[in-house]
């Protein structure tokens, strides 16, 4: 057993917070009618994962440098910016096509 970097209780609390954020993200994506709201939900889910990276970087014994997780988190933030740009572009296209940001308006997949 290598040395523990912090207590398991703190780790659990942090993970629960992160899971809650993820759940809220899913909830937002699934329930929001507004496409921008859905995009926000996706961002929330992404950030909860980011949080996990930082947490495990800090608490895992197998990772030598705690900074490693934080570097990944930074990368993913940059990625999230790009992803948000793509998402907004998609929403823009959706609005142009259907004249509304309402996700239900885009019903052409209906069989």
């Amino acid at each position, binding site marked *: 057993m290598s040395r523990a970097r912090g207590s398991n209780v703190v780790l659990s609390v942090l993970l629960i917070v992160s899971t809650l954020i993820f759940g809220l993200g*899913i909830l937002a*994506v*699934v*329930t*929001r009618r507004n496409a921008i709201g*859905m995009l926000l939900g996706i961002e929330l889910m992404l950030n909860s994962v980011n949080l996990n990276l930082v947490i495990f970087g800090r608490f895992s014994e197998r990772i030598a440098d705690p900074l490693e997780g934080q570097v990944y988190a930074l990368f993913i933030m940059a990625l999230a910016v790009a992803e948000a740009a793509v998402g907004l572009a998609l929403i823009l296209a959706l609005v142009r096509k259907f004249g509304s940001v309402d*996700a*239900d308006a*885009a*019903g*052409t*997949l*209906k*069989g």
Partner: protein
Amino acid sequence: MNSPLAVPLLLIPLLPLVNFIILIFWGKAAPRSLAILSTACLAAATGIAGYLFLTIPDGPPTTAMSADWFFVDKQFFFQFGIMIDGLAATMALIVTFVSLMVHIYSFGYMEKHEHFGRFFAFLALFTSSMLLLVFSSNLLTMFVAWEGVGLCSYFLIGFYFEKPSAAAAGKKAFITTKLGDLGFITAILILLTIGAQTQTFAQILDFESLKTMLAPRNAAYPLLKDWSFIVGLLLFFAAIGKSAQFPLHVWLPDAMEGPSPVSALIHAATMVVAGVYLVARMFFLFGQDPNLALIITLVGVFTAFMAATIALKSYDLKRVLAYSTISQIGYMMAALGLGSAVASMFHVGTHAFFKALLFLAAGSIFHAYHSLEIRRIRRVAKFMRTTSITFAVGALALAGFPYITAGFFSKEAVLSAAYEKFPWAFWVLALTAGLTAFYMFRLIFLTFFNYPVQSVPKRSSGDDNADENHEPHESSSAMTMPLVILAILSVAAGYFGWLLPVRIGGEIPHGGTNVLLTSIAFAIGGILLAWAIYSARIVKAEAMVENMPTIARFLENKWYWDEIYDATVGRLFRAVTWLVAQFDWYIVDDLYHLFGRLSVRAGMSFRQMHSGSVQIYLLTIAIALLILIFMYNITRFS
């Protein structure tokens, strides 16, 4: 195994085959120049065939080439082989020469036809198949060529396929001859079965080895001897189909729907004698069995007589010629049955020339009159000098006009063969010769001079677009030149009969004065009778018909063969096809409809799931993911 003869021998069928391939792909781009190329190649092939005819050594056949074709097994394999002997060389010369004449003639006849290239392509393929048939050294090679010939006849008879009657005639010819081909393939299968049992699989189909195996003094193959009658009968059935003998003769008159050059090539000079050639090639089998020989004689004699009587009352120029073809092939078959292959081949040779001549001349008349209805064509002799003279020469040869024409010599040979063996056959054939002379000169007296025009029934087969105000005129030189050449040969070929015994072996039978006088009497008698009725009008033709209404109707309806076949075979087939159709409609179709309806129903139920809302899809994915994670953990920790 390959002799130096292999190259020229292969070249003869290959030249037309290559031309076929060229013509079928590029015939539309440059039909005329490619047709000229094809004709030139055929002329070369004719030259080679003529050279072979003059130079091949006498005696047993030379196998020029034989190659392994395909294997089933080390022991069971098939060979592709070609060979040459006097018989094959004679036949090849006739085929190439007549085909060459037909090619030249077609330049004039098909001049304005839009499918000029296609026509020449099929002519080339037909010639090629026929030549392969002539040179094949085993039954399987021959069967391939045999089928090729049948296929080409289908293409060419149905050449005017936009005309329903021509399409139907093509089908009729194909199906009827195919019925005979069943006999061929069955005979091959029987031989192969025997071969497999007696360890002679590889050579049993080869003509030469089959001949030695069947030789009377060879007692090594009793099984083969037992089956030789059945095999012979089946092969003869195939010959009957191809050579339009009774009872499979019905396709040939209908085949007159094809263009006239085709009739000349296929239905007079080459294809229909394929059956005669098969019997002549397998003569070692047919000749030694008296029962087979008798059957062949009976069929030949009966067909000769029957076809001649039908020709008496036919009103279509080409149909009269078609029935005369059936009748003359009956002579050839009879001669084979009577044991004289030489007489038969002699008649094949002379008949090829004068029948090709007659068909080509009939085509020339059709070209000028746009009709083949002999009650409408009048004064050919006035308008078309060359055509009428050459036609008359052909008719004289067919009638067997004594001492001048080739037909006289060959027919006399056949009659002599009959006289020696079966007097009854001799008398029937002699009477048929008289009928032949009569119906040919009926044609001439009716159409060449100004015989009063009779009432013509509205619908008649050879009468497409008769133009009453049209002045007939002589055909172009491309058409008359072959006529003149063939007319010369129709006379001259008789004097070259002595070449045949040298080339084929055997002797031309001569029955002496009795036969000579009888055949002269019947030929002249038939011509005189035709003159008396149709020119001098001593006896009125109409009065004769009125006096014998039953016979007249019987002949006019072609002995009711078509009706009989329709009532028996046709009805049976229709019943079977009706049953099959019911099965198709109610069982096969319904089964497929069932599957179709099932998938439609399934699709309808599955489409309920597709609400079109992305969020619901996402929710489904999330829940499914949760379930999967849950299940994974259960399996992991349980």
